């Protein structure tokens, strides 16, 4: 519909996928390149890869306590997303994926392709709940457990 018009209009999507944590960097890069070729083959434009690095998952994903998170930002049509997800589903190294549409009617010429970003995964202090931090927090709070009981006694 929109592609029939003079200026090609694409949609903007992002896909986050989780890879097995024990994979070497080469395999991670290979997977990224595979995604890039699929996007280019289907008439899309890959804008940016962001590797979040190896992170602790909040619950075991396919029996893995950690995963390598990769975020891909790209332009394309709906067929591209289904094709990309089909490929991710068939890859054994991919634990999980999630695609989200960000915008409609994007002119691909206005969106520049930027460098891939690589973040170090484990040094994120933004972990909100659960997991090791929760346990550590609870261990710290354990000191105050007796105090809590005392407070209850005072109130009564």
């Amino acid at each position: 519909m929109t592609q029939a018009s003079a200026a090609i209009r694409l949609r903007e999507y992002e896909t986050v996928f989780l890879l097995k944590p024990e994979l070497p960097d080469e395999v991670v890069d290979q997977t990224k390149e595979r995604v890039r070729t699929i996007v280019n083959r289907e008439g899309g434009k890959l804008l940016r890869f962001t590797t979040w690095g190896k992170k602790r998952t909040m619950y075991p994903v396919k029996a893995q306590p950690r995963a390598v998170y990769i975020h891909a930002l790209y332009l394309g049509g709906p067929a591209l997303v289904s094709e990309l997800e089909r490929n991710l589903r068939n890859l054994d190294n991919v634990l999980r994926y999630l695609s989200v549409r960000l915008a409609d009617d994007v002119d691909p010429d206005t969106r520049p392709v930027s460098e891939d970003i690589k973040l170090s995964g484990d040094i994120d202090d933004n972990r909100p709940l659960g997991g090791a931090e929760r346990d550590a927090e609870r261990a710290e709070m354990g000191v105050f457990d007796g105090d809590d009981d005392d407070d209850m006694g005072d109130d009564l």
Partner: protein
Amino acid sequence: MMNSSEKYSRNADRTATEDDKRGAKTFTRKKACRYCSDKNLQVDFKDQSALKYFVTERGKIIPRRISGNCAKHQRQIAKAIKRARALALIPYLVIQG
């Protein structure tokens, strides 16, 4: 009879005090939607540090009557939390001992 009338009067007193309390409660500050007050903020499922303010310790989504979000942003936040859960960025539930 006396007892019952006393009871009624007590009840009347009680409701009056409760009304007072209710009246006092209405003076509490109305919470503002943080996404409305700051137009640059965007709800993002990848931003787990922002989403943690809208999730209880157990991992449940906090209702907007408590968090103070507007309806529009509460819908976006709820969706973002569900997406973050699917990617294991936020837990579905936290089991407390």
